[in-house]
């Protein structure tokens, strides 16, 4: 139950802050490439620094931060088909993010503000989730076997 409460509270806080600050993990890069505006990009930097600081701090305080930093334990994975899948998937997320005007987090925030365009985005998002469970996940098994 603690997982549900903790994620609900954290979600509420970042939802509130996201609405007030326009924080987005796609628009930051897009604004920088288009206009050299770094306001939103600083949000991405803030998340990285906050997470890094948190992992270092909580691992010293005895929190559950196993195998941190992970490269010291797992090493750098050699090139495999997984890297190719990450390449295609990563580029896909970036392109679709720009075309839709933001990351999934920003789209949820905008939908909560009452923007109907983002309601359609979320409709596609959750129907896409069913499609992933029924089709894409099995397709990926076949692709991984072929690669």
């Amino acid at each position, binding site marked *: 139950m603690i997982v549900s409460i903790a*994620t609900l509270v954290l*979600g509420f806080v*970042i*939802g509130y802050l996201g609405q*007030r600050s326009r924080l987005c993990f796609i628009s930051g890069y897009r604004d920088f490439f288009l206009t050299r505006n770094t306001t*939103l990009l600083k949000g991405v930097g803030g998340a990285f620094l906050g997470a890094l600081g948190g992992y270092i701090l909580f691992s010293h305080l005895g929190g559950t931060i196993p195998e941190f930093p992970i490269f010291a334990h797992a090493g750098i994975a050699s090139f495999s088909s997984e890297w190719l899948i990450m390449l295609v998937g990563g580029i896909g997320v*970036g392109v679709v993010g720009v075309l839709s005007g933001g990351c999934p987090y920003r789209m949820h925030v905008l939908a909560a503000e009452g923007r109907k365009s983002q309601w359609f985005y979320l409709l*596609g998002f959750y129907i896409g989730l069913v499609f992933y469970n029924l089709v894409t996940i099995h397709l990926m098994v076949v692709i991984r076997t072929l690669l």
Partner: protein
Amino acid sequence: MNLRQIKVSPFQAGLVLGLGSALVQAYFKVIPPVAYGVCMVCHPRDLFNWIADHLFNLHWGFSMASTNWPVLTVIGVVLGAFTAAALHGELLIKPAQKPFSYFVNGFLMINFGLIIGACPIRIVLLSAYGDFTGVFTWVCIVAGVLLGTWSMRWIARRQVAQETVA
């Protein structure tokens, strides 16, 4: 202190998000996998599949973090953003523009996101955790944004040129 007068910069919001995601992993059992404090692709998947599994016994997969109780990040984000918008008078129903385009983008985003097993937020968290695959995927997402930005700029220039000729 009036909550409405507090101004939040994206940097400050990002800092809280990063720190909060480390906190819920460290002390509130949002693990495994690691660096899973916030993910706006995997957490909706976990919640959706958890409900589907418990209601209809579908056996759609979800992370071990939500084995007993579901992760409710996505509900929290919507409630938090709704509260903030309502408190600041920004809660307005705006009509949809290009609904089919948004629908397709949402459809594609969740599929690409679940293929890499992360959203752009979790990629940042994974990179902070020291995962080189995360760093590589982060670079790929930025490359995708660059590609998308170029294509948008190209389409806009083409439209302007066509209007000028007409």
